[in-house]
């Protein structure tokens, strides 16, 4: 262990001012008390769903969900659930920006050839389901970003306070936004159904 001042080193975590030699002193961190395993078990599904509606890729959604929780460890937020959705939303947003590079990476790293199709499903049913999922996706896209986000967070199980905090809405405005978002979704989807029916 180096004792001389010239050679001693430590991570200067403050504003950049070298302080006394505290190299053996770990950075004071709060003890993590969030039971992330529990949060993970109870919210993994909802998180995957939430992410799926952003990246529209099941595998990516699951991977992002895993990543979200991997990053969560070591943190101790006041509201783990809301925090997790925040991180996930950020990841999904960042992800969208680097789609191209990621695809290249993935191509080099691994080959996941098979899609997650349920082999047992009849092809017709599967196709119909996919079509409808696609309609819902389009309907969601038709919503404004705020409406969509409120809706997705609601669907994920967050309460009004959490939704409001995430979106920047007063709690009193969440209900109205939700009602509007749902109506818009249903209407947009209906319009798409009509369009598809008309197209035959």
């Amino acid at each position, binding site marked *: 262990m180096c004792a001389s001042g010239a050679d001693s080193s430590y991570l200067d975590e403050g504003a950049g001012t070298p302080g006394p030699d505290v190299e053996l002193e770990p950075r004071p961190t709060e003890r993590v008390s969030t039971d992330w395993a529990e949060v993970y*078990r109870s919210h993994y599904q909802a998180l995957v769903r939430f992410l799926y509606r952003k990246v529209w890729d099941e595998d990516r959604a699951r991977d992002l969900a895993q990543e979200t929780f991997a990053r969560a460890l070591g943190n101790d937020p006041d509201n783990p659930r809301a925090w997790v959705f925040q991180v996930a939303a950020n990841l999904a947003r960042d992800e969208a920006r680097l789609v191209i590079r990621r695809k290249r990476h993935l191509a080099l790293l691994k080959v996941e050839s098979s899609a997650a199709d349920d082999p047992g499903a009849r092809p017709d049913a599967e196709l119909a389901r996919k079509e409808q999922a696609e309609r819902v996706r389009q309907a969601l896209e038709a919503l404004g970003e705020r409406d969509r986000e409120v809706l997705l967070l609601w669907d994920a199980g967050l309460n009004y306070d959490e939704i409001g905090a995430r979106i920047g809405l007063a709690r009193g405005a969440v209900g109205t936004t939700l009602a509007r978002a749902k109506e818009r979704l249903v209407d947009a989807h209906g319009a798409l159904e009509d369009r598809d029916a008309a197209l035959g």
Partner: protein
Amino acid sequence: MQHLDDHHLQSWLDRDRSGISRDEAAEVEDHVQDCEACAARLAELEATTRRASSLLAVAAPAAEGPPDFRDVVRRSRRGASFGGGGGWWMAAGWAASLVVGMGLGWLAHDQLRSGADAGPSTAASEGETVVAAAPEEESPSDQESSAAEQARAAVPPPDTGGTSDSAVAADPDITIAPTTFADAEAPDPLSAEPGPLHVQGQVRAEDGSPLAGAQIFAQGSSLTTLTGSDGTFSLSVPADAVAADSARPLALTAPIIGRVADEPRETWTPATRTHAESQAGFAVLIVPELAVLEIELGEVRGKVAVKVRQALDSGATLTLVQHRADSPVVEPTLPAGQPAETIERRGVRVTGSAPIAVDSLRVLLDRAR
């Protein structure tokens, strides 16, 4: 009569999580009983909610139970992460942890020296065990598909006036088993035929599992290589690298493996890293072939702790980080005084969040973006 707006109605529908008080809920219920218009609106909203929920259910992935939480822990510990944009990208499958190179290098040297007489050895001094004393030369990192077998010239700056250290605590997670180097087959330089010496071995973690992507320096030469996915390596060292001083056998050292932690840094104990750094004078990030790391810059009392981000595309496989105060950052080099946002150099991206000068880098270890 005052009608209820959607805020109240929707909040009542979501009364389990809207924060609506019991009194407020009762008010809604009372009102709806007497007001047809509001009752109708409530029913409408309820139907819409059901419809919206079922639509959303369609646009959902197949329900699968969460994978084992230990996967999450493992992923977190190895810092494997990806991100988009300014996020941190890293391929899965590499693990790095703090390992003390100092004592290790010393030990390695000792073991390899068995039999050879205690000749002068620059590696003997504890301060320099892990440094490959080599002239400064940099080879551009280029695309190489298999890094493990390739010796690259990587140049850590000479560690002059080494930090005098005794035993150094290793990160409990992973250490390089000292016996690894004992396993290395190094021909006796004295009897070796002229020609390259072939050295091979395996780097193992403390639990015996192979450590991929560990960097091996061949002391006395500028050669270095990386361990493969099975932890093995082989290095061919020109005979004249050791022939010059026949009393000094080829010594292999594994430098400190720095943990490239994902940010934020809560999971990264600076002291541990610092501790190891102060021992050997530098920390080296081991970057397996397909890894992408993020760079953070920080000041370590005049030393620069740099975690390197290297794009997968560049194929760069290892980057030296951290240098002593008296030797500037070699790679990557930052222009003095430049506020570092993101500097890309040879596929290595350096990101900082504070003004950076080469001689004195400020701390950026928290929340580097």
